[in-house]
């Protein structure tokens, strides 16, 4: 089973990564993007249960005060759908993902001893005047370095 745990800032709290991304998009000469929500994504595959995934999301991956989480579950990644007007950025296979190693350690600290593989990604949910070519430009000029990362847009 593959879980994708998405961590997002709760309503009423500020999301400086998102706000900053808006101004960076302007900085590369792309106009019309009104807001960006930044979402950290953790893809955990292996033999854990839904309950364990929830525990990991609540106890470890999200901040209890300022962040919400949302868990998506796939049998294979082919089931995954990319949201409209969003950009996801993931490391290519074989590229060192340092955070994933820490997450694996921290999952064990929670007492969950099932073997899991962790990958970390970033998701940007954009609002404003958007189209595919704009999203592509934002992804390649700002958010992803295609040498080591892949980006997903719809």
């Amino acid at each position, binding site marked *: 089973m593959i879980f994708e745990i998405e961590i997002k800032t709760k309503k009423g709290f500020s999301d400086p990564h998102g706000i900053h991304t808006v101004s960076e998009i302007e900085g590369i000469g792309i106009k019309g993007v009104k807001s960006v929500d930044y979402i950290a994504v953790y893809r955990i595959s292996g033999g854990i249960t839904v309950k364990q995934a929830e525990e990991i999301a609540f106890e470890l991956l999200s901040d209890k005060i300022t962040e919400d989480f949302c868990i998506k579950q796939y049998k294979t990644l082919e089931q995954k759908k990319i949201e409209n007007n969003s950009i996801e950025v993931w490391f290519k296979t074989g590229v*060192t993902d340092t955070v994933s190693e820490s997450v694996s350690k921290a999952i064990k600290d929670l007492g969950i001893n099932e073997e899991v593989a962790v990958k970390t990604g970033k998701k940007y949910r954009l609002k404003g005047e958007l189209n595919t070519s704009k999203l592509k430009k934002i992804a390649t000029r700002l958010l992803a370095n295609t040498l080591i990362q892949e980006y997903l847009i719809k």
Partner: protein
Amino acid sequence: MNVNIIEILNLKDKQLVELSKTNVLSLSLVEMKEVQKYFKNIKRNPTDVELETIAQTWSEHCKHKTLTGNIEYCEEKNGKKIIKKYKNLLKETIFKATVELNKKWCLSVFKDNAGVIDFDQKNGVAFKVETHNHPSALEPYGGSATGIGGVIRDILGVGLGAKPLANTDVFCFGHPDTKFSEVPEGMHHPKRIAKGVVSGVRDYGNRMGIPTVNGAVFFDKGYMANPLVYCGTMGIIPKNKTDKEVKSGDLVLVVGGRTGRDGIHGATFSSVELDKESDVSAVQIGNPIVEKKVLDTMLKARDLKLYRGVTDCGAGGLSSAVGELGEKTGVIVELEKVPLKYKGLNPWEIWISEAQERMVFAVPAKNKNKILNLFKKENVEATFIGKFTNDNKLTLTYNGRQVACMEMSFLHDGVPKPTRQAVWKEQNIKKQNPVKVSASVLSSDMKNVLSDINVCSRDYIIRQYDHEVQGQTVVKPLQGNSITNSGPSDAAVIWPYTVVKNTKKAIVLSNGLNPEYGKIDTYKMAASSIEEAVRNAVCVGADPEKISLLDNFCWGNPNKPEILGSLVRASQACYDLSKGFDIPFISGKDSLYNEYTIAGKTFSIPPALLISAMGVIENVEYTVTMNLKDVGNYIYLIGVTKNELGGSVYAKIKNIKGGFVPDLDVKISKALMKKIHFSVKSSFVEACHDCSEGGFITALSEMAFAGEKGVNIDADLIKVDDKKMTLAEVLFSESNTRFIVEVKPENSVNFEKIFKGHIFSKVGYVSDDKNLILVSKKSKISIKENIINLQKAWQKTLQW
């Protein structure tokens, strides 16, 4: 497992070249023929592991073939030609000066991972600066992070390991306002490169807990597709730990990160030019926490004397590190024992991978379990992979089968010396037309220079670095009288009280870099950079007799005679100035082939020589900052202002043609620096700042706003060597050997006595009205500028 025998014995010249190219070996035909000869002698073809090992060991990055090779240099001056032949440029210039100066306080020079000088009775200090240009062009964040990670490991791997105390970083980028349409295909925009590089250094340096305290940033369109990323680390080491002594029978221990496919061909890749299809696997990603754990544990192992040798895995990976440690003994390594990040690596990939955060140790067999336990206690992976022998051979096996066996002497001394041509032709440079401007233009020019991208505040960068971690940064990169105001420090001072209990001594770090001068004359560029580095150190209180230097050359393709000629000139300057100042070089590095291709056309970068200085200060209390201190104090300008606008910031923004690049009289410079130091030790100096980019008026403005004080200056009192100089020329000339010094009225008589016989003048005083007031009756100009406005001009440009 996959080991191939490579047919080489029967290849013709053309095929040898082809083989070198398809396997990214970066070996020339002459070198390939040498390889062929070796294997003809031992009557067999090499394995891929052997060929890759030779390519790594003989790479420009590891062997510095150009600087240590034969050069035929031809200089054309006043219509005459002078020919000079070098057998080893490095040994005949930079290193020669060090040998001739023969300083007792130089503990280890040009032989280990870093240069080491004396700190106190028990300790030495080590300093090294490296470049990581090509990787930073492709992946700015990962490239710069692994750059800083790599140079930190150089310090961990000097002698038996030093404790890092501070980092430095110097960058050259393309112009941040470059249009996207001008950025070559497949390359990142210069601003993206700059931001990525800064973030990489920030995240690695901050996580390592090493303050980044000194640096410089230079923007020029010539670095658009080939940025320069210099990273330096200084560390402290007990004097009895500065030597390695690997013995036959010692075991080879690899510690830290695991080996993956990252950074394969990094060493050979650094000698090829960049284009849009550059090798993907050359990119490395760092993990600072793994390196921090290695640092925490290995220094314990060092103090328990559990190992006899250590070096880091840098360019060339295990092949270079293990090869280096075993050069005098021979070594056998069982490649299957190397811990891997993932399966599927071929033996040659394991051997040359440049995966990060790995150190190699030579451990006496009796300490085997002790050292493993020590690392294990703090979750650091450590694995024995082989043994040092006494056969003077490099032997590699994989699951019991021999996959490489070569003589150490062939590997380390077998590389044939190339001979390269170098030429330099003197250019005819004329003085610029007199620069006459009105008071109002002068006022706005002042602010334009302060906000120029190469002068403006770097606080956006500096404040993202934890430049105070370890608590020892007592002269900080941004220095001011209060917390809200700050100006650029000349140098950083580290007071290592947490490591050396009760010490009063401190270490000063500074740098000099000016590629703008190099566009006109690389000799003067090198001379000015050396003086600037030393001058900066002296400004904060360094003793000019206890300073050491590092050289870092970043140049274009040395196969082009003019480019190599400019490199020879710069090296000669290093020799002349080192001797003249009586200041030795202790370590250095070069990065050549910094060129890139756009639409089929090849460009070389503007040559850049970074000079980094490290000095030891006797008493940390006698250090000085650059901000003005008290109303009523006098302001002195020490040194003479010459008509030298060539390569200046003012010439650039005003588009002034011609003009001389600042020259240097090393005797006068040396004498003045000693006197500045004497004045500091006599407590006569309240503040001191050197005049460099932007000239006198820029340096003065910085002192004023950093101290939240006004100044009153009579510009006609500034001593010049050319009475015809206009006021603008006087204020913006970048002449060397000039210091602005703030002195209390009661100390002024004694202060002036010290400088008797030298050119200096009292040009004004510190005022309480927060304005910079400058009057020149001769030019009928007076200026009044609010210092807060000057500070705003200085701070506004680089706020990303």
